[in-house]
């Protein structure tokens, strides 16, 4: 079996692109779970809203990609804040599983709503002109847009990591994760922090959705399978560490890309297989510190 170098590198890049989405989404899930104790099943649907939203803005209003890269996270994030205030707030005191079931219901509502308008077929959304085409690096042809996705994702991931681990606001957030009542006693408005955290996690998902619009086929169901893979990523990495989520996401994307080259039949199951192995060897996850 011979594999050409350019093919290998191009799959590697594609793996990195997918890994970037895994990283941003699992990061959002981890931040939300840390403070809200809710595993946000709707994350995939909100990712889809980012992508379909960009397509709608382009098609109906002529708003371009760069505006949507900022606007979609804000709009979808605001939508998330409404969800948190109206719905999620009511179930914090209950068992974790109700959070999963409620967000599952929301997912069905959102996806069903979009599906009733746009059906299940793909909507085409092209990359902005500035990023179309590619660069010849000599040893491979680098599509500009894919490179941009990886760079933009890494910047956002590390900015989030920095904000949570190194700033004062992040310190409040981490303290709120440990002991919300004590933090509240120090005069921090924890309910507001919870709302904003959910909004932020959701905004991250929408941002990933806009990034994905030109590379993954845009459709109302695009978030469905992705979210399940991201769940596996979260089980593998454990939700205890921000950096862990980023590294696990990227790493698994790359492994998935390489599997496409060497054994394509397993490319859709490899992440789940790795999850099984991790559960056998290190049940708490690679970066897990589960109580």
């Amino acid at each position, binding site marked *: 079996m011979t594999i050409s170098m350019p093919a290998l590198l191009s799959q590697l890049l594609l793996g990195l692109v997918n890994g970037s989405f895994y990283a941003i989404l699992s990061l959002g899930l981890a931040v939300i779970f840390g403070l809200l104790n809710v595993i946000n099943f709707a994350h995939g649907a909100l990712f889809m809203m980012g992508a379909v939203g960009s397509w709608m803005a382009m098609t109906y209003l002529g708003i371009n990609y760069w505006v949507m890269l900022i606007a979609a996270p804000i709009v979808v994030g605001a939508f998330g804040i409404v969800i948190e205030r109206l719905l999620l707030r009511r179930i914090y005191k209950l068992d974790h599983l109700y959070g999963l079931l409620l967000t599952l219901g929301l997912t069905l509502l959102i996806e069903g709503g979009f599906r*009733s308008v746009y059906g299940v077929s793909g909507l085409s959304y092209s990359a902005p002109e500035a990023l179309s085409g590619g660069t010849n690096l000599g040893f491979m042809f680098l599509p500009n847009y894919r490179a941009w996705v990886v760079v933009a994702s890494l910047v956002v991931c590390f900015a989030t990591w920095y904000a949570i681990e190194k700033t004062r606001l992040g310190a409040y957030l981490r303290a709120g994760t440990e002991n919300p009542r004590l933090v509240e006693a120090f005069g921090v408005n924890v309910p507001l922090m919870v709302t904003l955290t959910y909004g932020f996690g959701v905004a991250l998902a929408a941002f990933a959705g806009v990034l994905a619009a030109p590379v993954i086929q845009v459709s109302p169901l695009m978030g469905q399978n992705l979210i399940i893979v991201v769940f596996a990523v979260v089980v593998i990495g454990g939700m205890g560490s921000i950096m862990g989520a980023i590294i696990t996401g990227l790493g698994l994307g790359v492994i998935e890309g390489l599997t496409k080259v060497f054994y394509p039949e397993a490319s859709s199951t490899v992440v789940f297989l790795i999850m099984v192995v991790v559960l056998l060897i290190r049940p708490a996850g690679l970066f897990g510190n589960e109580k």
Partner: protein
Amino acid sequence: MKKTSYIFYGLLLLGLLVAPFVGFYPVFMMKLLCFALFASAFNLLLGYTGLLSFGHAAFFGGAAYVTGYVTKAWGFTPELGLLAGVLIGGLLGLVFGWLAIRRQGIYFAMITLALAQMMYFVALQAPFTHGEDGLQGVPRGALFGLISLGNDLTMYYVTLVIVVAAFLLIARTIHSPFGQVLKGIKENEPRAISLGYDVNKFKLMAFVISAALSGLAGSLKTIVLGFATLSDVHWSASGHVILMTLVGGLGTLSGPLVGSAVVVLVDNKVGELGNLLARLTSIEWFTTLGESVTIVTGLIFVLCVLAFRRGIMGETIAWMGRVRGR
């Protein structure tokens, strides 16, 4: 309480016995029975052991495919086909359960979901499942090689006997000492451990029983309808069975029966409801409701979690308790 539940189950059984003669389509009733069994098996795990499996479609669908394959390709008789399905369900349950009980709570749900998704991809790619088309034209055959099941009415009563037997098994499990330990684990796991119970062993056994019976439900569905498709293994089937149990009432014996009837009816009738609403309100969009059952399903999910967590039977039982207490 005991007396009322005997009356309830007596009337239910009577109703099911005469159903084909009072205008209910046997095929529809059989489908309903299969899902009632599926939801009851699922409830054994969620309602009585407190484990949320998000991967039960794998057992239901896996068994559906296996039964379809062995009866169609190898000419197995229906009872052997069902047995094969139960075994596959139980075996998959053993593997899934063994892996998933390493983690608790929300992780348990995510692991079972991910494992079931893996099964979905296997079903999509494996040669014997025929990918997108699924297994079609599975013969009903003849029970023990003697009684032909081609007739809907015969098939209906065979289905009814199997489902009632499986339901009695579930009821017996719940009321046995084993079932009491499961309840103990659900209420307070650390306490069950401190009392000396090997909690993981009990969880795994409950998982295997639940998976095997879900397999039975899936196999039965294949025999009745004659096909097994990707939608049987898709994660939305796992979501559906959760909804059935939730609507009916978690941890009540009768809840999943009622819940599955409600959900199957909603799935089948929502299109007609949409057309009716469109006529009444002259809003054209309502006619698309039939194609997007998911919106209605999602709405029921949200309402149940927010305002109706005890489910139909849970509320009924609580209401009867209040009336009695007065």
